[in-house]
């Protein structure tokens, strides 16, 4: 029997779902103002469709509640509780259903601080799952973070690792503004990692450099940035390319400093996200890079997003639709020239 490893990383490996569960648990324990609600989130209803909220209603009673299927009422209740000082975490099961609650999100949550001249802040978090995961089809797979990034007053977070998920969810919950917290469904159970100390927060608005490099910078978030990291590691191993990979983690406000610094050095950038490319988040980032680094780049900023179609059902079409490894690799090679 070997001596247990006492230094370094001692926390067990968590997947996304458990990381989120831990963040909610810690937040609920830390502050009685934190409340959690959404469809089926309480234990008698199974603790959430992906078990993210399992055990919480048993532990925290009426502060964790299942709701009827009423997305407007769910987000509205979160807005109301938030403006009187609670820190609600509302769950909208899938990002497509955010459309049902859009008015409460963009016309109310995003604006009540401003419209009230600062009297009432809206410290709520909306957790929602998104992304292509194999056969969920057109109405259950969309990533529409660009809508929310275009709405002043909201913050938008899309973690790609369990530690970021946990630390950023805690930051969102204790942030004084409304945060849209997007959980990529395809990363839910596969990716594992240690999630750090209890209570450890990761600041909103800061990118994470997943890998450093000098020849090209890949910037993105969600599943494609995880794929980009693999591509970059392979290209480095096999072909000696030195590629920097930056996970934005927060889409709004995004970390301009880190991105511009990196691209300023590498002179080449590729942007990746799973949302459809056209009018997506990548357009803003690309436009900003060109604005700030005009004349300094060796190649135009490339963008890799999903095809401009609804999400198809058949596996052959889904593969053709989604921003994935082949497209990312092609864009990197093309941009390297």
């Amino acid at each position, binding site marked *: 029997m070997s001596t247990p490893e006492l230094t370094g990383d001692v926390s067990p490996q968590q997947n996304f779902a458990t990381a989120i569960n831990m963040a909610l648990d810690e937040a609920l324990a830390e502050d009685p103002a934190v*409340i959690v609600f959404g469809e089926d989130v309480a234990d008698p209803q199974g603790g959430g469709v992906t078990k993210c909220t399992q055990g919480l209603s048993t532990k925290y009673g009426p502060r964790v509640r299942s709701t009827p299927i009423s997305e*407007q*009422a769910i987000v509205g209740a979160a807005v*109301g509780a938030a403006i009187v000082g609670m820190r609600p975490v509302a769950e909208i099961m899938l990002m497509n259903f955010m459309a049902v609650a859009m*008015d409460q999100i963009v016309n109310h949550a995003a604006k009540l*601080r401003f419209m009230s*001249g600062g009297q009432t802040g809206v410290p709520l978090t909306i957790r929602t799952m998104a992304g292509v995961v194999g056969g969920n089809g057109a109405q259950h797979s969309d990533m529409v973070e660009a809508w929310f990034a275009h709405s002043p007053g909201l913050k938008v977070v899309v973690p790609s690792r369990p530690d970021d998920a946990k630390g950023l969810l805690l930051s969102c919950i204790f942030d*004084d*503004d409304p945060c849209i917290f997007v959980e990529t469904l395809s990363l839910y159970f596969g990716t594992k990692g240690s999630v750090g100390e209890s209570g450890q927060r990761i600041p909103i608005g800061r990118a994470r450099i997943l890998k450093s490099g000098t020849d090209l910078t890949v910037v993105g978030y969600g599943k494609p940035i995880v794929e980009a990291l693999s591509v970059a590691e392979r290209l480095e191993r096999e072909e000696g390319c030195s590629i920097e990979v930056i996970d934005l983690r927060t889409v709004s406000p995004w970390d301009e400093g880190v991105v511009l610094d990196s691209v300023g050095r590498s002179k080449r950038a590729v942007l990746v996200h799973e949302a459809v490319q056209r009018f997506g988040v990548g357009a803003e980032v690309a436009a900003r890079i060109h604005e700030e680094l005009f004349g300094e780049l060796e190649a135009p900023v490339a963008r890799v997003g999903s095809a401009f179609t609804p999400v198809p059902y058949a596996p052959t079409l889904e593969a053709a639709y989604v921003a994935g490894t082949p497209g990312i690799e092609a864009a990197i090679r093309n941009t390297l020239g």
Partner: protein
Amino acid sequence: MDKSVGRQPENENEILLRIYETAEKIRYSDERLRTMLMSGQVRFNYYSVRGQEIIPSATALWLSSEDYVITTYRGLHDQIAKGVPLDVLFAEYMGKATGACKGKGGPMHVTHAASGLLVTTGIVGGGLPIANGVALAAKLRNEDRVTVVNFGDGASNIGAFHEALNLAAVWELPVVFLCQNNLYGEHTAVELSMAIPSISERALAYGMPGVTVDGNDPLAMHTAAGTAISRARDGSGPTLLEARTFRFFGHSFGDDDAYMPGEQKARAMADDPVPKLRTRLVADGGIGHERVEQLEECIRAEVDDALAFALASDYPEPTELAADVYA
């Protein structure tokens, strides 16, 4: 917390007097604002509340500043009755830096947290789901606070109404859904937008009490509001209270009323609830003529001073734009 809540004036005349005081303040404010709009002295979208004064004036007797009110673009009466100070209220209507919201919200988006006027929304039905959250917070914190959310007849046809009433019933929230049925939503008569005669019947769909009251009858309104608010306060859950009333000046300032049968409007205006209440107060002899006139003088002075303050105030500096977008 204001200890007067729940303890109503013992004398019916005193109740009426307090209702009149608020109603007359609303009536006179509305009149002054319309006059100023007419003359071009000020310019904003204005949704007159003339004709609907009694509803919040009677309701307010059951509320303290610890209680919450949510209202709509047609909100002057609710804002005044909830106790929003007139100076910052009018300043907000005029977009001045001294306004309740620093001029950022405007008449459709007044908040005055200190007096419990939490939200004024410009989105039809948008306030109802928010009221639930406010009420949920009070319930979870064991606070003695009731939330009254105001909306129109037209709003009762929108999805948010349905979701909000259902959730409030399921969670037994301390909230009163106060529908001010003024018979029109913009230019559409209530009977063209729903196939049932009264909005309170919709309460049946949620399992909460539904009550229709003549919102222009001060004592009836006072009683109905009291029942609904007491129910909320003692933990028995929400009520849908429909108060029937009429808007004297159409949907918004400048409305030509062409869609309204002229006699309908004439009849309603002939039955103007505010002077009617005054007549009753004075005639019944319980309240002397003099006391009423003194009160009116005070009201006029208060309103005129507040308007003068608002007019004299400056617009916010352009740099103020960047503030309050985020914390």
